[in-house]
């Protein structure tokens, strides 16, 4: 009997194999959304636990990775809604400076703050599409929406960001120092 069928029947050995095969991918996906490695680890454990609890709803002929990614995405979005995790994003640049320092630190902080103020749905779509450069179909699958809806969310995020940055006196195309 194949692994996914055994997992759906509740065999813990099969689930262990799936966890070991997929935990890195699930973690990598969650950390891209929440941008905090510690939180991402906790959410990965939570995701895997929920996957195990929902095993009877899984169709063994289906795509386990895509199913897992969708559960992970929902959990990550819930986390962002609860925490409005501005701190984790604001704490990031010390560990990860801008690639070639084209923007001044103050400008980067303002852009980051404006980004954090985006509605969570738009922020997640923009994070995955613009920052992490994930394909639109992958994002759509994870969010459970169409590719068109992903593009619309990214477009709306860009428009809001552009407006907020203009309000702060920042024009992205002219901010090089």
């Amino acid at each position, binding site marked *: 009997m194949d692994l996914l069928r055994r997992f759906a029947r509740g065999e813990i050995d099969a689930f262990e194999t799936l966890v*070991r095969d997929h935990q890195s991918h699930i973690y990598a996906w969650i950390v891209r959304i929440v941008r905090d490695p510690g939180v991402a680890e906790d959410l990965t454990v939570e995701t895997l636990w929920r996957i195990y609890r929902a095993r009877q709803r899984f169709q063994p002929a289906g795509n386990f990775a895509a199913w897992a990614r969708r559960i992970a995405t929902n959990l990550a979005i819930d986390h962002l809604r609860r925490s409005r995790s501005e701190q984790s994003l604001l704490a990031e640049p010390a560990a*990860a400076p801008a690639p070639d320092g084209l923007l001044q630190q103050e400008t980067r902080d303002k852009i980051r703050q404006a980004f954090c103020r985006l509605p969570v749905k738009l922020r997640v779509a923009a994070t995955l599409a613009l920052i*992490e450069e994930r394909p639109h179909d992958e994002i759509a699958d994870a969010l459970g929406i169409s590719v068109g809806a992903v593009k619309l969310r990214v477009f709306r995020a860009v428009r809001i960001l552009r407006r907020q940055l203009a309000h702060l006196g920042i024009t992205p195309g002219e901010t090089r120092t």
Partner: protein
Amino acid sequence: MRGHMKEDDERQIREALRQSVPPIDAELRRDLWPAVLRKIDTHPAAIAWYDWALIGASCAVFVFFPQMILVFAYHL
């Protein structure tokens, strides 16, 4: 023309964002299976709210119509 402006707008915001919120490429540092197993052991499957509702409704029926217990037992 409009599409080109939209693409240009998105590219500029993308560049500014990637400098301000750099892409993250963190690798998982430990095996999470022990933590998952612990969670499975300490959090047994929760009973859904509709199961509790069914139990409550059944108890109410048995309290107000005790003869239903026999009907229920017959169908078990």
